[in-house]
């Protein structure tokens, strides 16, 4: 089984759409690797500037956000842009359906947390690393030099099977 999580980057906004995650001008690429420099290039935050190439982004192995992440276009390029940047865990309050399905179809994790648990993660200070215990359906977020926060989540049983199978293509090839 793949290892999920690692250093986290926090993006405190609802409704981040797939055009922001990977703009359409890069959809002419025919390799996933070519998307690597362009993750979140068009992210729009009201009150702050966002640097998609910050050291935090470069080191990130997990992403924590709010609700309805990945809305809009069905482009799986949004998931691949995360994947080729070694991010295989996105945590949020909720996800848009197609994005969520694309994550599990690629065998990686879109984890939904209760709003209070999410608030607790956002309240952590300094560098935070997040580890996932898939069997226990639990995440542990550890801030550098601080107290770890544990949160439970529930995976849809079928999505869990997809992750265990390494994605939908291998699941479907085995079963249908």
């Amino acid at each position, binding site marked *: 089984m793949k290892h999920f999580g690692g250093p986290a980057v926090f993006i405190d906004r609802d409704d981040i759409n797939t055009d922001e995650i990977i703009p359409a*001008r890069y*959809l002419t690429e025919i390799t996933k690797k070519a998307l690597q420099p362009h993750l979140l290039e068009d992210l729009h935050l009201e009150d702050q500037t966002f640097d998609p190439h910050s050291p935090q982004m470069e080191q990130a192995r997990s992403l924590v956000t709010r609700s309805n992440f990945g809305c809009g276009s*069905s482009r799986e390029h949004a998931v691949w842009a995360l994947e080729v940047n070694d991010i295989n865990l996105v945590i949020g309050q909720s996800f848009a359906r*197609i994005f969520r399905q694309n994550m599990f179809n690629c065998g990686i994790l879109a984890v939904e947390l209760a709003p209070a648990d999410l608030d607790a993660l956002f309240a952590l200070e300094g560098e935070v690393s997040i580890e996932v215990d898939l069997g226990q359906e639990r995440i542990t977020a550890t801030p550098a030099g601080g107290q770890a926060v544990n949160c439970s989540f529930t995976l849809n049983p*079928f999505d869990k099977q997809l992750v265990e199978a390494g994605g939908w293509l291998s699941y479907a090839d085995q079963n249908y």
Partner: protein
Amino acid sequence: MGQTITEKIFAAHRRDTPTPGNMILDLDVIMCHEITTPIAIMDLVEKGMDRVCDPSKIKAVIDHVTPAKDSKTATQAKIMRDWAARHQIKDFFDIGRNGVCHALFPEKGFIRPGYTVIMGDSHTCTHGAFGAFAAGVGTTDLEVGILKGVCAFRTPQSLKVELKGSLRQGVVAKDIILAIIRELTVNGATDMVIEFGGPVVEAMNMASRMTLCNMAVEAGATSGVCLPDETTARYLWPFIQDDYPTLEAAVSDFAKWHSDPDAEYARTLTLDVSELLPQVTFGYRPDNVKAITELAGSRIDQVYIGSCTNGRIEDIREAAAILDGRMVAPGVRGILTPATPAIYSQALEEGLIKIFMDSGFCVLNPTCGACLGMSSGVLAEGEVCASTTNRNFNGRMGKGGMVHLMSPASAAAAAVTGVITDPRELLS
């Protein structure tokens, strides 16, 4: 307990139930375009699985950037073209015959009531207008669809939108769906199918129903759907006349898909459209919607009329009625892209293209183009477009650009005045 149309379609296509609440459906139609399909094709080739489940179920088109704008888009088109030839995909539409997928495929009669349809494109929900379950998916779902003819879905709940009353002159389906999205918000229908019904929908033609269903995904919905009726049967008649002795027989067969009176809905939203004004978006979310009168006077740089939402002949007629005898305002760029060759040809025949050209519009071939900022009308930083498309996300039509979504009549009115304008002021 009764079933909704979506539950009936799911039950009729169920291949497997791997876990409660998840279903594997057999697919009737798998639609492909050149942006999301090539990586699926290349992956299948790489894995030694370059097969298609059934070439007759696959409908493929080059539509997003056509003609190709550079070497990369030419390569995407070539991958599609070679794949279609290799697998004898008969329904493949290339230059001269190609158009925006969600306008072209209905026109070809590919979508029927009760069908299951997927495409690697979020606006696949458009086809729900025919009483089908049609959902946008990612490339992996598409890849499995191509290979195995199946797709996995969580069994969706249904949200009923009941439309009653009568529309004022100058107010159309686009205004209704924008008002609905404002009401539902951008994730108000996540994991649900929006079932559009009521006397307003019953009176709508297929073009208007497609406009409604097209934007269901902007409220987060898995799809939109309308109950198939005589209007559906008349539209499809050229393609189904060998299957039914009479039109009435088709209509009565279609009724088997109708939601039962005691079907269960997660929510019902009733909207009286009688007082509805033309609507327009502001900001960067499709649920940021106001009456056009509240934004009247806002400056625009470009007008874009086209797309899978509003590039059909009815939309072009609606805009032409405003443009006839008028000129595009100085400093404003007008762009029309009829959604398919048949629509373009019909518009030529009706003299509509001449009206657009005489008014100073640039008329393009059918393509998705600027709707998603790929080609053919991309905005510069700080520019604003009055657009008949479906998304106003930040940078959608070009980095730093802004899009106001509106009806074809409203977009045409903006072209003439150079500012956001209530189209009713220009209707005679």
